[in-house]
């Protein structure tokens, strides 16, 4: 799948969506294109390339470079082909002696203010200015080089990933426009006018600006003005392989541009179904962790976590792990063994792991980290709509008139989709934000929410009750939709429940901390504002009533007819790259692939036949059950792949106690993560650049992960699991990840039509993909719900038991930020730390003042579960009574404070609500001191293992 680095045709201007065709003649060739296309676009479609510099088809036409001028029969002058729309019967000439003169004249001006260092320039051979100078036949610059120029302009190297060299700038504004149109951040502008016009960011440099390092400007730059430092270092890449980002649930396609086995840069793939050529700072730049010095590439074993590690061969490591599992199986029984997969694993890795647990060990003790993030989504949407997945494709948002964001922060958590959403908002869609905190969407350049429902943490279900009340009592229900598409009885019950006076905005306003009139207005807007779409995140799921809230969301979407077409829907924004996929792959203790319950005899029979082993009909242990059982002495061995429960799961001390109680903890990861510090076997994993497989994003899009370099650890992760299985007496014979996907497709109806071959052809595909939908399903539930009729559920608000009191008067809620990802194992090992070197506690000025806390002070945060210390950031983004932090750095101990309260249906932890007290302190907490000591010891154990003397 190696392709040239410039593999895409640039049409110069975006495609027109018109259905009307217009026929014109370009250089004697007749061509039909959609009305509204530019002449330039039509020319490229006709195989004629018109010189251009300021035009590129990811941006609206601008008309500034004046290279693309053409002659049109019967029209005066020389119109720019990028800004002139096609018209029926036009006769266009793109090459005439006069046009050649004008183009050469323009190019002569450009080069009169450009350094003549092509041979030593980082983009030599990959530069549009260079190409155009050749195309127009420029042979001399008669102005000389002693005139005014910008050649001495100072380079801005402040950004860790790219540099800005104004001496090479041709002021085409592509960077400025990319920042505005594609990313929507408006960090760049042109400063000054005339010859003094120059690209400017912020007051001093890029790092001082609003720039979010998405890379759109760098990608848009036609010269070496804005360029990746990695290209400066390594040179222009040789070839490109398309793969899928391993960060968030947007699932961006990237072209890994390579030189041999060296990744030179990651360029968001223009044909990426989820990202359409856009990226964020993580996917675009933060991939250096793959070659970070902390990476462990040799297997290690040890008897006790108090021992130093021993480096061993793969065979030894696998044999040791298998023997321990067998020993524990014999000693304590199969119920004492389980596996945890991660949403960072590929579908194929998750599949083979759950297969190993179910078929080889004969238990259903397999769970995945979706347990602690989106398990309520799976439950709630299955119950109401019939499928555990979001209803829409991302592009659907471009048809939304009202966007309702609940407990999600797309510009930080899902930045590429956030940019698409912002584009739609700039086009005029209305926005409702329900969040305790003022996220960027509430107010940012050219975006302002119509309603910010600043509810108190933990009151989501009261919010949905109030909104439901308005919908049912103000006649806003789409009754014909409900009658045709939903179970009427369930609707009536829900309607009568919602109509109760205690569910009115007025009754709930105080509990929510939101004015009743705002609740009413937001509900009316959602129900009557046209196509209304809900986007939600972990602010919905990570609550004691997470599943209730998901069902409540589905209720209002069904009641208002906002399901089953473009522009509407219920859209969970998945946190990690493969949350959807890991759930689809049967990694939950109660479900096989495709969300089929283990107690279903037919499904079990299918898998028993395929796998040749008897399977258990009893759901296995969930992660918290495994931990509890470990502490009780009943759970002894854990195979944990890519997941770091010691950092990401709630009540860290409970987790580590459980890990300490086990006899064999096998961790498969790139790094010595927090969980690995409690491990007995360490299988070094492969990074996403080193393996093949698939990820499934938040819109059910299955995208290929392609190996671009040899695994530093020696093998891909699925191979490790297969070897372990084989060592346990159940040979897994796969030659390639594609064989695993074929098995998944054969056993899973919604995946029936998926294969690597199809992904090569289509780029990606959204499940269900079967005979009926061979190219996938962008929008679900169009004619009927997957469960047949949509079902309403009563969603009674029950306040969480995690309440503030005199001792713990503040509510802590947690989230994440743009530059860091989840537990930070990857992003902390990149230059992204330049933006976020530690987790801080956001606290409102009033609460800070009450406690004598000043910006940057050390503050102790204590809850019923534990205590930690971090620095204070005083901000009005949080409301009084609420504090906020992130959990990207293990030493912050954010999860030392969070409790084991969890969702009633799925055990998803209540990360978003913890009652705490905050005080000014002078030193780190006891937990942090112990953590530091323990970490030092464990790192030392690894270093000892690295010493050759110890290996022998």
């Amino acid at each position, binding site marked *: 799948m190696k392709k040239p680095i410039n593999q895409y045709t640039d049409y110069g201007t975006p495609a027109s969506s018109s259905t009307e065709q217009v026929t014109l003649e370009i250089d004697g060739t007749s061509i039909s294109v959609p009305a509204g296309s530019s002449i330039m676009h039509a020319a490229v479609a006709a195989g004629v390339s018109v010189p251009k510099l300021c035009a590129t088809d990811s941006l609206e*036409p*601008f*008309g*500034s*470079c*004046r290279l693309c*001028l053409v002659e049109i029969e019967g029209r005066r*002058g*020389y119109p*720019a082909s990028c*800004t*002139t*729309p096609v018209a029926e019967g036009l006769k266009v000439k793109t090459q005439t002696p*006069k046009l050649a*003169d*004008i183009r050469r*004249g*323009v190019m002569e*001006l*450009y080069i*009169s*203010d450009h350094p003549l260092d092509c041979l030593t320039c980082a983009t030599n051979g990959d530069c549009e200015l260079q190409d155009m100078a050749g195309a127009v036949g420029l042979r001399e610059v*008669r*102005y000389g080089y002693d*005139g*005014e120029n910008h050649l001495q302009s100072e380079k801005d190297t402040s950004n860790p990933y790219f540099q800005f060299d104004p001496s090479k700038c*041709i*002021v085409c*504004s592509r960077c400025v426009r990319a920042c505005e149109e594609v990313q929507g951040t408006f960090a760049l*502008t*042109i400063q*000054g*006018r*005339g*010859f*003094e*016009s120059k690209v400017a960011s912020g007051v001093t440099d890029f790092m001082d600006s609003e720039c979010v390092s998405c890379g759109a400007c760098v990608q848009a730059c036609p010269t070496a003005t804005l360029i990746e430092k990695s290209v400066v270092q390594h040179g222009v890449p040789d070839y490109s392989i398309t793969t899928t980002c391993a960060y968030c649930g947007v699932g961006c396609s990237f072209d890994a541009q390579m030189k041999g086995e060296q990744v030179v840069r990651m360029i968001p793939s223009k044909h990426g179904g989820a990202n359409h050529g856009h990226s964020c700072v993580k996917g675009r730049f933060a991939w250096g962790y793959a070659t970070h010095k902390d990476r462990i590439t040799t297997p290690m074993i040890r008897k006790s976590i108090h021992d130093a590690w021993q480096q061993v061969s793969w065979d030894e490591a696998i044999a040791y792990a298998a023997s321990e599992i067998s020993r524990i199986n014999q000693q304590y029984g199969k119920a004492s063994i389980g596996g945890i997969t991660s949403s960072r694993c590929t579908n194929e890795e998750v599949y083979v792991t759950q297969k190993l647990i179910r078929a080889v060990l004969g238990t259903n003790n397999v769970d995945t980290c979706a347990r602690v993030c989106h398990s309520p989504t799976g439950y709630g949407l299955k119950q109401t709509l019939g499928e555990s997945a979001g209803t829409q494709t991302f592009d659907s948002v471009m048809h939304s008139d009202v966007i309702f964001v609940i407990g999600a922060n797309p510009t930080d958590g899902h930045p590429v989709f956030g940019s698409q959403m912002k584009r739609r908002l700039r086009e005029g869609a209305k926005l409702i934000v329900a969040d305790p905190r003022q996220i960027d969407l509430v107010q940012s350049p050219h975006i302002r929410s119509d309603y910010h429902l600043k509810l108190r943490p933990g009151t989501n279900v009261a919010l949905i009750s109030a909104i439901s009340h308005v919908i049912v009592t103000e006649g806003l229900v789409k009754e014909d939709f409900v009658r045709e598409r939903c179970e009427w009885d369930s609707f009536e019950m829900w309607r009568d429940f919602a109509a109760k006076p205690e569910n009115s905005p007025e009754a709930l306003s105080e509990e929510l901390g939101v004015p009743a009139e705002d609740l009413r207005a937001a509900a009316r807007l959602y129900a009557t504002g046209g196509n209304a779409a809900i986007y939600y995140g972990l602010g919905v799921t990570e609550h004691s009533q997470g599943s209730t809230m998901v069902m409540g969301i589905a209720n209002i979407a069904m009641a208002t007819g906002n399901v089953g077409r473009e522009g509407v829907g219920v859209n969970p924004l998945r946190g990690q790259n493969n949350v959807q996929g890991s759930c689809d792959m049967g990694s939950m203790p109660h479900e096989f692939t495709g969300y089929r319950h283990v107690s279903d005899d037919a499904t079990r029979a299918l898998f028993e036949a395929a796998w040749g082993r008897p399977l258990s009909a009893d759901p296995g242990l969930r992660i918290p059950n495994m931990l509890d059982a470990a502490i009780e002495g009943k759970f002894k061995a854990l195979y944990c792949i890519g997941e770091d429960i010691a950092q990401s799961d709630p009540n860290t001390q409970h987790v580590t106690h459980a890990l300490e109680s086990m006899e064999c903890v096998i961790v498969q990861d790139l790094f010595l993560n927090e969980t690995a510090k409690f491990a007995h076997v360490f299988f070094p994993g492969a990074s996403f650049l080193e393996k093949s497989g698939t990820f499934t994003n938040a819109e059910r899009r299955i995208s290929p992960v392609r190996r671009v370099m040899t695994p530093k650890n020696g093998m891909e992760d699925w191979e490790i699991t297969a070897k372990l299985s084989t060592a346990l007496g159940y040979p897994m014979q796969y030659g390639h990840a594609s064989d695993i996907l074929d098995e998944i497709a054969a056993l899973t109806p919604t995946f029936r039509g998926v294969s690597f071959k199809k992904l090569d052809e289509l780029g990606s595909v959204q499940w269900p993909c079967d005979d009926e939908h061979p190219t996938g399903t962008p929008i679900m539930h169009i004619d009927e719900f997957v469960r047949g009729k949509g079902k309403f559920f009563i969603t009674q608000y029950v306040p969480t038991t995690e309440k503030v009191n005199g001792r713990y008067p503040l509510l802590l809620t947690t989230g994440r930020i743009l530059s860091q990802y989840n537990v930070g194992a990857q992003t902390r090992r990149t230059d992204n730390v330049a933006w976020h070197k530690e987790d801080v506690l956001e606290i409102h000025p009033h609460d800070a003042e009450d406690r004598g806390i000043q910006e940057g002070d050390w503050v102790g945060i204590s809850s019923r579960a534990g205590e930690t210390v971090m620095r204070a950031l005083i901000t009005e983004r949080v409301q009084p009574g609420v504090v906020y932090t992130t959990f990207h750095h293990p030493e912050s101990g954010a999860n030392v404070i969070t409790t084991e309260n969890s969702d009633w249906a799925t055990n998803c932890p209540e990360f978003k609500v913890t009652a705490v007290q905050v005080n000014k302190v002078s030193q780190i907490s006891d937990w942090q001191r112990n953590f530091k000591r323990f970490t030092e010891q464990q790192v030392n154990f690894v270093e000892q293992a690295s010493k050759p003397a110890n290996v022998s």
Partner: protein
Amino acid sequence: MSIKVYVPRDSSALSLGAHDVAAAISAEAQARQQDIQLIRNGSRGMFWLEPMVEVETAQGRVAYGPVTPDDVASLFEADFLHGGKHPLSLGLTAEIAWLKKQERLTFARVGITDPVSLDDYIAHDGYRGLHNALKLSAAEIVKQVTDSGLRGRGGAAFPTGIKWNTVLNAPAEQKYIVCNADEGDSGTYSDRMIMEGDPYVLIEGMTIAGLAVGATQGYIYLRSEYPDALHILNEAIDHAYHAGYLGENILGSGHRFDLEVRRAAGAYVCGEETSLLESLEGKRGLVRFKPPLPAIEGLFGKPTVVNNVISLATVPIILDKGGEFYRDFGMGRSRGTLPIQLAGNLKQCGLVEKAFGITLRELLEDFGGGSASGKPIRAVQVGGPLGAYLPESQFDTPMDYEKFSEIWAVLGHGGVVAFDTSVDMAKMARYAFEFCAIESCGKCTPCRIGSTRGMEVMDKVMSGQNKDENIALVRDLSDTMLNGSLCALGGMTPFPVLSAINHFPEDFGLDKAQVAK
């Protein structure tokens, strides 16, 4: 009964001390217990006579000028309040040849009325056009304007009626009327004189435009260096609102029209209509490409009439007296009158409103009185800093869009700047590039880099380096700018440059005969 004394408040008069003169007259009248009514009128447009004081007498208005505060006592002594003789006497204003020879249609009231007095405006035939317009359908109003032959007076000379018709037929919930009052051409001031001397005629013209195309909101984008116009316009707009000439129900007709003055951002290029719209939207004054035309996608993306002050201020008389009346003035396809602004090296500078067809020579000699310096007039730049320089041999060209176009020149906004034989035309050519370099918005390459390179190459020409090659380069650059620029700023800079080279080659050290080839 008190005697009416007129002292202009036009900023050209103010810059010559009109406020002091007015104060001196008030003080003197008080001291002498003379009952006068001091009226601050607009300027009659004879700048060499400013401050020109007028007194209303039984015979008509009598003028004195130029008056300084020191002259005031002697004027009273000479009984100027009753038209008494004085060394500064100019006789009856209406009989002053400069004024008598003009055809003042657009400027009919300027200098005569109190600019902020709505009563005065109405007493002098004001708002008759609006009353007529309210009886017509939108299409009928547009037809009157189309029939009048009025073309955009900002310089592009696009037929106003056709532009309005486009906006009328563009379906939209909101449309706008934008008045381009960012008058920035050197040597031009007719917009300012209208706004300071007869603001209601502009307000009325915009209101009629609103009725004609279905626009309910108007903006006057006013040059930031016109503080007096700003105050006068705002006061007049207030009065018009109070009297029901603006607002949600104009004269009880059920039609709405709101009007607001916006101060410009101080850039010449914002006089270009698309960068004006950008600026009005609060953005950088960057030129937009066309199409889409502002008439289809203008201010905030809505159909918008963008017209110059003079175009809009001419609409009331067209609606008052009919399209045919206005059309009867002028020649060829240039119908009606043009307010011509004389400036530069002339004895008599000021505003001349004449029907199209008057020649440059008549303007320079009969109105301008020849050069101020007494030396022969060698070159005239018509149409602002981007207009061509005309040599004496072209002075008999009539003021007509097409006739000027034939000699590769432009009428533009009607500015006429005269230079005597002391002018160095090579410096003027360099200046054209320099002006473009200073004012370029920086969007398109030919203008952004070309203007600076043009200056540099002209420096080489003027210092005698590789003259032939560098003149050839200036010509090639001019061709690139002319054909390649996004807007008229870069696109017209070659007019002054090439006309200077072609008509005055000797100033560039070139052989006249050679250039003629």
